[in-house]
């Protein structure tokens, strides 16, 4: 037999349910169902009614809990946004501190503009004429010395100049010296 159920609640009962009232006990005649199924449906409805009568719902005592749930949701949003702001602040602070620390740790860079200038012992504050072609061709040479950073600390300008001259003399090839 083909099952073609008829729809209920097309008029008044819809509104009744929408108001939250208990379902009507005389619900439908199950005429849309085959005979044996209609009996089953009727019995299911009766059983549900008697169960609901035996065990009525307790009063919703935790209405406050429901209300708290909403407040908690709002508080949770605030808490999450606060936490995100705190994390951003912490990361930013760490970044700044890290940058500053790495800048302090890096050795000072001294550049000798030309071999000629240093070899003649010209004062460091005096301008030195440098051939542009030779400067462009000269590849900067970096002398990596373990002592270099400590050597240059606490020296006067003249002393630095002298140390640079010494290093320059011991350099294997001429060129721009960068420490």
């Amino acid at each position, binding site marked *: 037999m083909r099952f073609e*159920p008829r729809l209920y609640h097309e008029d008044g009962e819809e509104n009744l349910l929408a*108001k939250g009232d*208990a379902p009507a006990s005389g619900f439908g005649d199950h005429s849309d169902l085959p005979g044996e199924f209609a009996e089953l449906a009727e019995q299911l409805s009766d*059983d549900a009614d008697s169960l609901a009568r035996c*065990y009525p719902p*307790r009063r*919703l005592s935790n209405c406050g809990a429901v209300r708290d749930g909403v*407040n908690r949701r709002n508080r949770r949003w605030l808490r999450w946004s606060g936490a995100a702001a705190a994390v951003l602040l912490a990361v930013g602070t760490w970044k700044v501190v890290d940058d500053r620390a790495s800048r302090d740790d890096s050795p000072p860079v001294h550049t000798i503009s030309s071999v000629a200038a240093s070899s003649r012992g010209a004062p460091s504050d005096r301008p030195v004429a440098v051939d542009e072609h030779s400067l462009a061709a000269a590849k900067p040479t970096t002398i990596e010395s373990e002592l270099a950073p400590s050597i240059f600390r606490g020296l006067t300008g003249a002393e630095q100049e002298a140390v640079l001259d010494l290093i320059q003399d011991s350099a294997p090839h001429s060129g721009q010296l960068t420490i």
Partner: protein
Amino acid sequence: MSPDEIAETSQLYHARIHRAALVLTGNPWDADDLAQETFLTLARGSDRFAGRSAVYTWLYGILLNLERRERRRIGARRRKLQVLWGNEATEDRSAPAAETPLEVAEWKKSLWAKVAQLPDGQRQALVLRYSERLSYEEIAQAMECPLGTVKSRIFNGLASLRELLDADLDVALVPAYPQEDLHHAV
């Protein structure tokens, strides 16, 4: 939804949700918990309610999801315990096992105890239809499935229920200790 609206909705539909939960779980304690959890979920996620359906169909949808999740959780726990205790020597128990679901006698005697053996889709459709008296469209909204699926689930659910009852009837008709046929004996 404002907190006052949510509280009002909870008061309004609590009895109906509790009734459905009672039929689904088989005992009033779990039904209380389930109903309360439904309204807490409403409170936490009321901003997700789009208003495309009635509030109570949305609440039924929450209830069904929570109940299905709880059943799966209990089922998984029971399977784990079976694995753990599978090799243990069986002894007579003075009390039911801890994992045995608690159900009240009235529910066990009702047809809903048989409905509980059906697949989730059929079981929930039957509850919404014959306990909650929802229309097919409302059930489709609550279960988030097409109307045709709802109709077939209800029809198949009733057919399966009929088969379960028939099987029980067959078992009941067979005597526990059939009299031995001694006609062949000389």
